[in-house]
């Protein structure tokens, strides 16, 4: 794996790498955005006869040894002697159909639809990533959970960067006591133990807070705590840019502050911002996951990657049902994608400045 990565970094140009990382991320985000269409079921619907079903196997060859072009599944039936143990009932094959009718959902959160990418006929079930304690389809939950976790990460990053850009620019551009005070506040924020801060904020909230409110509150807190680092970076860039000769020259021609900022200073900060964005998104996704894992995020039955991973806090789940790790895989893939992108941005930034 490691050598593979090194090979690619040697053989691929930076531009190609950026493009590859971006494409993978676009694809993954597309899957999440159209999660309702791709997911075969509803994330919260319980299926109490099927707790902890392992991932359904796709077959091409049936019990008689005949090859089927269309993949099919067998129905999972629980073994009478063991609890939460299942076997495939080989009596009948259930072929996988595309574009099937299913539970209603909204395409990309906008248009109502009930067509799903794939599905099997009842009574068979298809659990691509197994089912959880309540018999909920984990694959659907990962997709829907991605909306919450990634949504939180992206929005919180937006807040952090806007705040960072605003305060960093003011600080770097105007200098003196403004700079001094903003930077001291930034340092204060850098040393804040944000996890404890969140714990405290959550404890003060009333019980009756709705999931939507919880979600936005989480984003607001995560986002507003993290502005300090981007602000310091932006300040540095602004500080060096505003003393450049062409800035002085444009000043000499009577350019206003806002013109100088727009035309000559801010464009320098975009590279830094992009790199920061690519770094912050996975960091904030993990922040959401951490909070939900600790029971401070969104509550059941809403899925988020943190909620899904929280199942692993139970020792018996941890050692008995390996498919409960699937959300961690999703998290790893997304984080790697973003970090590769950040890396590429960073390299590009260096080559530009050099």
């Amino acid at each position, binding site marked *: 794996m490691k050598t593979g990565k090194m090979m690619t970094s040697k053989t691929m140009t930076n531009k190609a790498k950026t493009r590859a990382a971006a494409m993978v991320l676009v694809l993954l985000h597309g899957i999440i955005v159209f999660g309702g269409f791709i997911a075969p079921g509803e994330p*919260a619907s*319980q299926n*109490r006869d099927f*707790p902890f079903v392992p991932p359904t196997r796709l077959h091409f060859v049936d019990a008689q040894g005949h090859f089927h072009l269309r993949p099919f599944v067998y129905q999972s039936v629980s073994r009478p002697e063991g*609890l*939460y143990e299942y076997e495939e009932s080989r009596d009948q094959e259930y072929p996988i159909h595309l574009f099937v009718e299913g539970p209603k959902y909204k395409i990309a959160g906008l248009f109502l639809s009930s067509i799903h990418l794939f599905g099997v006929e009842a009574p068979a079930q298809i659990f691509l990533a197994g089912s959880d*304690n*309540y*018999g909920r389809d984990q694959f659907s939950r990962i997709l829907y959970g991605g909306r919450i976790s990634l949504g939180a990460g992206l929005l919180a990053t937006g807040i952090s960067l806007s705040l960072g850009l605003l305060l960093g620019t003011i600080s770097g551009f105007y200098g003196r006591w403004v700079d001094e005070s903003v930077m001291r506040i930034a340092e204060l924020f850098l040393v804040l133990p944000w996890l404890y801060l969140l714990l405290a904020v959550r404890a003060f909230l*009333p*019980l*009756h807070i*709705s*999931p939507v409110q919880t979600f936005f509150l989480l984003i607001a807190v995560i986002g507003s705590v993290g502005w300090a680092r981007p602000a310091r970076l932006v300040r540095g860039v602004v500080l060096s840019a505003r003393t450049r000769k062409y800035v002085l020259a444009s000043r000499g021609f009577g350019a206003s502050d806002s013109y100088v900022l727009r035309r000559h200073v801010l464009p320098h900060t975009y590279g830094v911002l992009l790199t920061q964005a690519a770094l912050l998104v996975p960091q904030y996704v993990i922040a959401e996951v951490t909070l939900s894992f600790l*029971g401070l995020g969104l*509550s*059941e*039955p809403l899925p988020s990657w943190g909620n899904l991973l929280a199942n692993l*806090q*139970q*020792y*018996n*789940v941890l*050692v*008995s049902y390996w498919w409960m790790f699937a959300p961690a895989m999703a998290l790893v893939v997304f984080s790697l994608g973003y970090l590769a992108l950040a890396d590429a941005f960073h390299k590009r930034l260096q080559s530009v400045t050099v």
Partner: protein
Amino acid sequence: MRRLAWLAALVLVLGSNSLARSSPQPAQSDEELQITDGEVGRYGGSLVVGQAAEPKTLNPVTAADVRSREVIGRMMADLIHINRDSQRTEPALAKSWAASRDGRVFTLKLRRGLRFSDDQPFDADDVVFSFQVYLDEKIHSPQRDLLIVGGKPIAVQKIDSYTVRFTLAQPYAAAERIFDSLAMLPRHLLEKAYQENRFTQVWNINESPAALAGMGPFRLKHYVPGQRVVLERNPYFWKMDQKRQRLPYLDELVFLFVGNEEAQVIRFQAGDTAIMNRVNAENYILLSRDAQNGGYGLFDLGPSLEYNFLLFNLNDAKASRANRPAWFSDLRFRQAVSSAIDREGIVKLVYAGRAVPLWGNVSPSNQLWVNQSLPHPARSLEHARELLKAAGFSWRGDGRLMDGKSQTVEFSIIVSSSNNQRTKIATIIQDDLSKLGMDVHVVPLEFRALLDRVFQTFDYDAAIMGLGGGDADPNPEMNVWLSSGSTHLWHLGETKPATDWEAQLDQLMQQQMVELKYDRRKRLYDQAQQVIAANLPYVFLATPNILVGARKNLANFKPAVLEPNTLWNVEQLYFREGSGATAGAKP
């Protein structure tokens, strides 16, 4: 060489000295020791038990939490004891007792010649002193409530050094059961602190072992905060086996503080601990997979005596939302909720089938007291909808339930975040009630925060809790069902019964408490159970089976349904020969 031999001799002497201090003392002729039945064992070994958290105190009078009581209970003894196996009372420090004809006066004869774990004699003065402390209002002992009969504290009188008389204000059914688990205190160690009004500060977890003594099978050896408490044999314990060997057999009993149940399971599986007290069903199944190789046995004792329930807040305190009580205080609403809950689903998904569904407050395993004729209605969403319709509820176009004032039905259920089972139950109920169009939020809270809301601020809509499990007798339940009771959770601090059925329940519970005949008492308690089940102050859910585990080489292990489930006969436990006496003994 000579010097070496001398050194070895010194070590031997010192070693045997330190051993002698806690080795069992031979029985004296003037000691009235109790002879126990059960397998005759052998001395030695150290038993390590995992505990989720460390005790808060070692003071038996002020201890309110299970962890503290678990440890304290092994160092203390009571006058009359409930045998956890037979569930009947048996003589303990009192060798016999007699009740007067009207059931109000109890005369207890104490065993003679007994000594506390610090070699000081035990007699009637200690008993009188102990009750003085338990009954003192300033001490706030959680046991005090039980010792108030008919509104008056039990009067305790010393007749002679070995006879004590207890007088009750009114007859009290099964009165001898209240003596169970009331630890007898050493007057010589505690009287000074009591007189100086610092009783509640003594015997905390930092107390030196010398300042602590009891009549139980073990005494404190040392306490390592945050890690473990080590108890050693009480060499003067008052029980012996058939061969007249003084109990307990074990040299040491170690409570290891491991953090939580998951850690308890891991430590037990790894062989670090020898007993697994109350494991949950999923971990039980996990452990059962390698029980053969692991060298341990697992026991399913059947349903416990506790009951888990959904509690609606019926307190009339100024609630944060004005419309709340209107729904919850409507019996039809509660019945609809009860009818919609999938109890079988709870048993299957939460307890992995090792539990029984409940429709009343008495567990089916309490055969002496359960009302067999209570209805067990099957789950029916149809019936629930009819009830809601009759109560004036209706459904919006999108399926959401609305009350008569067009307010959507939305409430939260609080659960203890550390109790995985109850959180799961809440998730199942949430899904069940969503089928009725109710929007339910599950809010896991830290256990103390939850208790605070339920007992103090009343700032909650509904909660999932559990009660019971201490004794099979109905009397410890008085607190829960009397409208003035301190655990009358749905409506605390009622000065008079708020509803007719609560008045009726008060009456029935009072009557059964003073009725001395079992048959008549049973009829009264049956009626009380009917009133409870019909009016649903709690929506009963399920009672889990008691699941425990122990190393195979641990003999005399007889887990019981009553608490403490595994260590109640710790004095008789011993490690079988050739099994490595200290299996699970690496603290």
